[in-house]
């Protein structure tokens, strides 16, 4: 077991938790405003594809990152129009967005790069840098800076989200619209406008989470490269009880489970001499979510009006 729990496990956890944190915090803005966001997976895919494609042409990861957040915002806005303006079932619309982004990047990359579903490789020096590449630290501190700038920014975003949510008028409005839109409306808050901002913000953040996958962790976009991370992010959001810091901790926990899975492969054996089946560790986030939702580990209460379209005239 000693081979598994090393310092590299810590870094691996941070690496794997980073996209989850971005997406889950994105989901938090949407769900706190009362809009269920199953579409996180699709929003991440939109960001991941856009980041890889734009970085390939623009040769700058930062332009790629900005484009990814714009792409996420645009897709989220469309999702918001369908849900808020046309009062669609949010889960169904979210599923539609997710399926759309299984197909759309494949068709676009097929046309742009004549490939079947993946973008060309981005050169190593055009990927999102680590902290060390920006602020070179001397050897004892070197290791601390060996994380992606996007991981560090994720921490900043969690802090900002906490502040915005609990210390600003916008945060108060966001929460009140998610809890009790009628009361918020009576208090003069424009329910629909706040919900639009919540959903669009979720697109921006999930898009960045996706960009980290394609031009941070990896160096190209591949078909369905999120592989369910949007749903794990959603699970983390629920496990974190829709609160920023707890949600981040949940992401770290799920990232840790993932990291252990990877490190255990081929290292730890069962008494029978076989590898430990990775499938059981992969199940952990999902099982935990079910258990939490059932109320076994403290109650996780969703925002009061989550998933209920607001109809002023009703």
């Amino acid at each position, binding site marked *: 077991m000693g081979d598994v729990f090393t310092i590299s496990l810590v870094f691996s956890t941070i690496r794997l938790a980073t996209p989850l944190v971005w997406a889950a915090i994105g989901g938090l803005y949407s769900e706190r405003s009362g809009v*269920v966001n*199953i579409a996180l997976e699709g929003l991440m895919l939109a960001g991941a594809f856009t980041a890889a494609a734009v970085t390939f042409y623009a040769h700058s990861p930062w332009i790629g990152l900005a484009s990814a957040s714009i792409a996420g915002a645009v897709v989220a806005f469309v999702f918001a129009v*369908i849900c808020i*303006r*046309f*009062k*669609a*079932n949010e*889960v*169904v*619309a979210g*599923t*539609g*967005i*997710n*399926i*759309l982004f*299984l*197909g*759309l990047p*494949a*068709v*676009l990359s*097929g*046309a742009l790069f004549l490939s*079947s*579903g993946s973008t060309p490789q981005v050169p190593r020096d055009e990927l999102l840098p680590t902290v060390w590449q920006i602020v070179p630290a001397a050897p004892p501190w070197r290791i601390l800076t060996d994380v992606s700038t996007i991981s560090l920014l994720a921490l900043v975003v969690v802090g900002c989200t906490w502040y915005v949510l609990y210390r600003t008028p916008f945060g108060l409005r966001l929460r009140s619209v998610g809890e009790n839109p009628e009361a918020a409306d009576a208090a003069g808050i424009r329910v629909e406008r706040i919900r639009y901002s919540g959903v669009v913000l979720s697109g921006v953040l999930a898009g960045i989470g996706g960009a980290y996958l394609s031009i941070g962790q990896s160096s190209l976009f591949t078909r369905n490269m999120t592989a*369910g991370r949007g*749903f794990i992010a*959603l*699970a983390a959001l*629920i496990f974190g009880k829709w609160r920023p810091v707890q949600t981040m901790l949940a992401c770290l926990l799920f990232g840790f489970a993932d990291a252990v899975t990877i490190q255990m492969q081929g290292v730890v054996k069962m008494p029978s001499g*076989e590898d430990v*089946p990775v*499938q*059981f560790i*992969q*199940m952990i986030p*999902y*099982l935990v*979510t*079910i258990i939490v*939702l*059932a*109320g076994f580990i403290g109650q996780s209460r*969703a925002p009061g009006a989550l998933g209920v379209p607001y109809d002023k*005239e009703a």
Partner: protein
Amino acid sequence: MSRLRELLFPLGAVLCAFAVGAVVVLLVGDSPIEVYRLLLGSALSWPDGIGYTLFFATPLIFTGLAVAVALRGGLLNIGAEGQLYVAAFATAWVGIKLTGLPSLLLVPLCCLAAMGAGATWGAIPGLLKARFGSHEVINTIMLNFIAVALVGYLTQYHYRLPGDPIMESVPIGDTAHLPRLGSFVPGLPERIPLNVGFLLALVAAWLVYVLLWKTKWGYEIRATGQSPAAAEYGGISIRKEIVLTMAISGALAGMVGINEVLGYRYRYYDGFSDNYGFTGIAVALLGRNHPAGVLLAALLFAVLQRGGVPVDAFTQLVSKDIVQILQALVILFVAAEGMFRVRGKR
């Protein structure tokens, strides 16, 4: 008038989806007319076009019915994907374990295994909702991932031929095979995997109609879906209905395993589902949660799926993924029903 609306609305949604799809094709730089000609045309040829289209429609009929029954009961089952995986494995397991039983006994047992496993996997989120009030949407999503991991584990570690590089189980017994329609339909070659599972799908659609509109059970399911409070007041146990509806829905989704394992591959093949569970949501919505509508919607999506093959082969730039885009657009337009409503009329 409302009948007409029921028909016109899905048509409008499909047309809108195709229009947006055409824009995507244009942007990519191909001719939408050519792409749609390939997509829709190849499904109509006999025997390959029609044979494969009906084969592709089979799992979508099952998952469409599954989602439709749940929606009639006021529940959104996005767990059909997990339910059909567990069911496909269960049916293969019975087919492997009970090899040697006569066909007349083994095939029904395998079918029951599929339906039972699907029903169980569907009932879990039902129970969780009935007992703890936790929302079925999140739980079904989570159970999808758990199902995939579970059957992946069983296949990889316990039911694979030693040394087989493919994630698939050992074959099921010969007597568990469902006959292919080609073996008794003249002119239909047996290489086309269309099998008795398709006929089962038609029967299932009819049974769902009977269940929902001709039985007390179905009445209670629909009453619960329309107004839980009124149903409860009328003496219906909502908790029981939730579990029952999810179990029926899961059993229907599980029947995909019959078509896949007993009629097509004759073994469990990991990752076989081409998003059948999620496409089932589109099928149910487009079919207005009615069995007849589900049949038509499944047929449309199967036509697209079949048409994707020549699109891949004969166009320069557009890949068969355009099919996935069209399916997603149909879901989005059907979901955004409010878009088609006449303004000012509420």
